[in-house]
């Protein structure tokens, strides 16, 4: 560690966290597969239509990184909360937030989940417990800790799951937030999606050779680093982490090692840039989390081709209608420019 170059370099390690003993079975697995598939198709569709220049905002696709979203959110209950970063679509969708409102937000429409004011980098759906996303690195981590604090103060059974990348772990506020979550013993699951890059800069020049997860025990927290393309491995680690949170046993950090397929921001591939090798890229692409679970779940008899094609069909229709919804939605009224600067008295 780190020098992770290939998927098989990931060496799972557990710091005071035992992966759940619950068995990983049909219904659970299928639901996660479907969620990953859905995220993949949503992102692909955004990618296809981005060139039309109607989604006019910086957009960070998570193709290749679907497993952590699906696996972590599989453990979250409706009342649990998710906080997210710039690469938020997967987190948003897996938490069950509204697809139509998301696509409309990307299209800058009044019907968007943030009324068009936020764009892809500021998704929100309070009804689904998706509490917000923001692109300033690590900025939502402490906010998620604060939400967990409020829950604890009020005796509400709510877990905050906070998603962020490996780059965000270089921000001091991440440490401050871990320290406080630990001292106050808060119901938080920190989820680091380590895709080995921060924009075009590789991990090795930014961090010393140790798993990101090793930061957690220093703050008195449990942690694990797992293969982030293995939805079962993430699910098992996250299950225990969420359980600890629910039981009042404090926070956990789960590091999921994964890989981004598209460019950092925007819809295209970026092998032409040369910051990562074709060889590296294709090894990770062959380690496709979607394909891995597809074949494993088919082999286990949890899925069959019919089920999958029904899923594809449903998702495709859902997407057609989401994009239609977005495109048919009005732009915000000019008067909206000046609303919401300050809240009206409640």
């Amino acid at each position: 560690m780190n020098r992770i170059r290939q998927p098989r370099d990931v060496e799972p390690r557990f710091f005071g966290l035992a992966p759940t003993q619950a068995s990983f079975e049909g219904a659970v697995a299928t639901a996660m597969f479907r969620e990953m598939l859905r995220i993949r198709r949503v992102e692909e569709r955004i990618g296809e239509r981005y060139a039309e220049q109607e989604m006019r905002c910086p957009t960070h696709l998570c193709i290749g990184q679907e497993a952590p979203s699906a696996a972590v959110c599989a453990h979250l209950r409706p009342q649990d909360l998710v906080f997210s970063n710039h690469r938020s679509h997967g987190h948003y969708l897996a938490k069950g937030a509204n697809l139509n409102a998301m696509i409309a937000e990307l299209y800058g429409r009044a019907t968007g989940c943030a009324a068009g004011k936020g764009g892809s980098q500021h998704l929100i759906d309070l009804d689904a417990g998706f509490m917000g996303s923001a692109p300033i690195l690590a900025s939502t981590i402490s906010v998620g800790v604060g939400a967990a604090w409020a829950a604890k103060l009020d005796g509400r059974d709510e877990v905050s799951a906070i998603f962020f990348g490996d780059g965000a772990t270089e921000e001091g506020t991440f440490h401050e937030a871990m320290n406080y979550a630990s001292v106050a013993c808060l119901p938080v699951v920190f989820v680091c999606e380590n895709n080995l890059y921060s924009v075009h800069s590789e991990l090795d020049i930014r961090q010393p050779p140790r798993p990101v997860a090793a930061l957690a025990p220093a703050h008195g927290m449990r942690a694990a680093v797992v293969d982030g393309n293995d939805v079962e491995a993430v699910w098992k680690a996250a299950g225990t982490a969420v359980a600890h949170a629910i039981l009042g046993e404090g926070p956990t950090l789960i590091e999921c090692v994964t890989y981004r397929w598209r460019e950092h921001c925007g819809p295209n591939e970026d092998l032409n840039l040369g910051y990562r090798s074709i060889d590296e890229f294709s090894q990770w692409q062959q380690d496709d989390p979607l394909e891995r679970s597809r074949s494993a779940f088919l082999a286990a008899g949890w899925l069959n081709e019919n089920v999958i094609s029904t899923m594809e069909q449903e998702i495709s229709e859902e997407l057609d209608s989401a994009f239609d919804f977005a495109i048919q939605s009005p732009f915000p009224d000019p008067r909206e420019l000046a609303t919401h600067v300050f809240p009206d008295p409640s």
Partner: protein
Amino acid sequence: MTERQLKYFEAIHEATDLALGADENVLLMGLGVPGPTGIFGTTSGLQDKYGARRVIDIPSSENAMTGVALGAATRGKRPIMVHMRLDFAVLSLEPIVNQAAKWHYMYGGRVRAPLVIRMIIGRGWGQGPQHSQSLQAWFAHVPGLKVVMPSRPCDAKGMLLSAVQDDAPVIFLEHRWLYNLEGPVPDGVYSTPLEGASVLREGSDVTLAACSYMVIEAMRAAETLASVGISAEVIDLRSVAPLDMATLGKSVGRTGRLVAADTGHAECGVASEVVAAVTEQCFASLKAAPQRVALPPIPSPTSPALADLYYPGANEIAAKALQTLGRNDVLPEPPSDPGRRWRDTPDPSFTGPY
């Protein structure tokens, strides 16, 4: 009207106590908040009264703890966060300015962040470059924040109560030298609006618009000016964002002359904003160039010999007022303790009420 007198720090304490008492969701947090000195007395005893769940000590992690407060605010809490010096809060500008100020807007009104951040502005006794900055202009520059700087105990109480009730993030700035000033403070819960200046002294020749501690100096300047027959109107801005242009406009409309006095630096500061906004809107009324009284463009020096030269006060305000009147009277020195060698502690001759 009650005649009850409270000191400024007591007024803050009382407002906090009432806010905690009135609403379970109000929280008070900050390093040293429950400690034996209780943020210069403003938080003393409140942990005993409201418990360690609601009145909490925190690590010195200004950035994340502000995010924590924001997160709690989005979930129904109403945290009051306290910084012993504004200078420390510089570490928390990301969550204040990028996040708290914008969450309501950028999420299309879906979220509210009712957060009060108290910051104390230090001064004197060699506080020096890193313990005395008065950066209200930074906050006033940012949409989505309300920024108040009460100078009187009654406003400190009423505005803090309003701030806690407001659903927007409020930056609440307290100058350390106001803490022992006394003034009448009504009993019980009341609220003073977070916008709106207050005319503390009426006058017809020149408008002195000031905020926070500079209001004290402006009042003293008005006294001095009166002694040479000049009638100065003193406006306590109270809120620096938004500015109360109606009150300012009305006053300058009558006097035609303006001196804007701020505790911070002039450049892109509150004094500049007052001058610019008044000039833009009331140009026809102006009879002379408006003037600014603010810190020179120099970091705050520590030695009392330099700090004494650094901070402008009543004399400088009065001199600028004379300048707007085209007069060059020699003003009497304001009364001052003869045993006082340095001006690095508050003038004992001024303890309020006013």
